[in-house]
């Protein structure tokens, strides 16, 4: 029987509604991505992109120290940033949720993320003002007579980490706070009622319950941090390049698109690995 039922017409309409978004995503995300993946298997010889299929780019990545070191730098910096940011943000989120009076909490939270509203590029630049040789910190220390020579705190890994941590402490404070206030105060009351002290309550009850929120925030931090070009480019100097910087180098100076594509695929694999590791805590669902 091929009669057209009500459900059929409805379904046809539904396809019409979802189609633009799907087509957009396929045309401008999936296909370009596949194209790039294909290109990572090509190579660039004497200025021309050669469509010869091989794994040369990937082999070169593992063979050339300068490229492989980029991935290691990226992973190290990202891990340091993620751990530091969680450790710094959790207490702040907790203080806002528990110590700050209810009616000031929203204000405290808005204040904690206010510098979000500076432009991302400008935010890294601002740290340059603070950390550079004649920046605020060095001039203050020298005026106070603590140091005689300016400290080298800009243009290195420390500066990159500071710039990143600054951004992600704000982000994580937000996500962890959102997690903390969702907890019913009865958990704490029940734990106290059963004889747990403050620390025990935190360790056995509050922390496990907020772990999913922490992991979501940490994963987000990982993804955004490992893929970022701006912060390390402005604050990191030229000694320790991270993977996105190397990708940009391939694009700019050498116009080696196949190599850039291969490095991007490797970057994505790193993110996927992180996702697999955190997957059990990550749940993005319809409320």
């Amino acid at each position, binding site marked *: 029987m091929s*009669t*057209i*039922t*009500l*459900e059929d*017409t409805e379904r046809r309409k539904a396809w019409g509604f979802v189609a633009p978004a799907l087509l957009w995503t396929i045309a401008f995300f999936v296909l370009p991505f596949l194209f790039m993946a294909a290109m990572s298997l090509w190579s660039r010889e004497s200025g021309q992109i050669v469509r010869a299929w091989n794994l040369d780019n990937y082999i070169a990545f593992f063979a050339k120290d300068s490229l492989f070191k980029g991935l290691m730098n990226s992973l190290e910096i990202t891990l340091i940033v993620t751990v530091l940011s969680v450790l710094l943000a959790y207490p702040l989120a907790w203080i806002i949720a528990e110590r700050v009076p209810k009616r000031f909490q929203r204000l405290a939270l808005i204040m904690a993320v206010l510098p979000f509203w500076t432009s991302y590029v400008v935010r890294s630049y601002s740290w340059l003002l603070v950390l550079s040789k004649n920046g605020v910190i060095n001039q203050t220390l020298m005026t106070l007579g603590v140091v005689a020579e300016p400290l080298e705190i800009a243009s290195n890994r420390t500066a990159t980490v500071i710039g990143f941590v600054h951004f992600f402490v704000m982000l994580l404070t937000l996500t962890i706070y959102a997690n903390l206030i969702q907890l019913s105060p009865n958990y704490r009351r029940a734990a106290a009622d059963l004889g747990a002290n403050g620390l025990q309550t935190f360790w056995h009850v509050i922390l496990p319950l907020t772990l999913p929120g922490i992991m979501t925030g940490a994963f987000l931090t990982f993804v955004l941090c490992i893929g970022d070009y701006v912060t390390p480019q402005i604050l990191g100097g030229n000694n320790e390049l991270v993977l996105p910087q190397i990708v940009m180098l391939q694009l700019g100076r050498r116009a080696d698109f196949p190599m850039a594509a291969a490095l991007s695929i490797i970057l994505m694999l790193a993110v996927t690995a992180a996702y697999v590791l955190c997957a059990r805590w990550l749940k993005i669902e319809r409320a």
Partner: protein
Amino acid sequence: MTAAVSVHNATKTFGAFTALNDVSLDIKAGEFIVLLGPSGCGKTTLLSILGGFQSPTRGKVMIGGKDMTSVPPAKRPTTTMFQDYALFPHMKLRDNVGFGLRMRGVARAQRDEKALGFLDLVGLKSSADKKPHELSGGQRQRVALARALAVDPDVLLLDEPLGALDLKLRRQMQDELKAIQKRVGTTFVHVTHDQEEAMAIADRIVVMNQGRIEDFGPPADIYMRPRSVFSAGFMGEVNFIPGQVKSVDAASALVETAVGSIALPITSFTASVLVSSQRVVLCIRPEHFRRAGEADDPVVPLGEAKVTGSAFFGTHYRCHLKPAKAPDLSIVAHMPQSAAVADGQIVPLAVSLADIVALPQSRN
């Protein structure tokens, strides 16, 4: 406006589950029909098919003589009043009620006037500028009714509209619904699982079970002359006494039961053609029992029975009885307020012949 509705052999399946099994139904224009049954019986599916929210897997739906089987809800002369009222939360009452008119291109002034008229009909004219969240449950229910009626539908479909109200408000709203239906004359098809509600408002009741229609008729018929064991049981408390047909002639049949042989007129057999030696159940409502010698019309004596328990219900005593002839049988009977029954008392039990309904033993 109003229209007749008929359903021909409608079947609806969801995968392996049959929600509606070969249902046919004829509703006259202007009738108040109640679809009654337990949850999962198919009544809501039938209503959805009438409203056009689902189409039947097989079968046809005719409204006002036209085939509506695959016409979408918007193009049907029906409107639905939803269980959760489904009022538009961001619109004032007048805009809620006027929405259907707006969709039909009626100008603002006109539809406001009409909306106010319908809000007046349900007694909420003074709240026209409120929003739904400012209203009580009963008031929202009225707005939903006004909104559904404002487009002048031929058929109004009501999906358990009183389900969320407390008992007292429910009874009050039943009376109002009935009165409003009389005034507007629209065909109402109302779904409920509450048999008291069904009897209170329906012109005719459709009793449904497991996707089939078990019984269809005016409330008194359904209650007094049920055509299926399910229907008898669903409409109220009933005693089932199993028996077997011994002999049949043109006017009557002799049924042998544990409480004695009873000669029943053919009219007592509401459901099917009679055959000798067929197994049947006699259905007797608790209030139909008499104490032998009390009744005026012809009664069937059922022998003596012992009261094993009783409770006072205000209008009557509800008693559990054990017939002397059949100690395995437990019978529930209502005795008058004045009966002064006591546990262990022996009463002579009887029932009016006309109150007995005999049905074929059910399949399950």
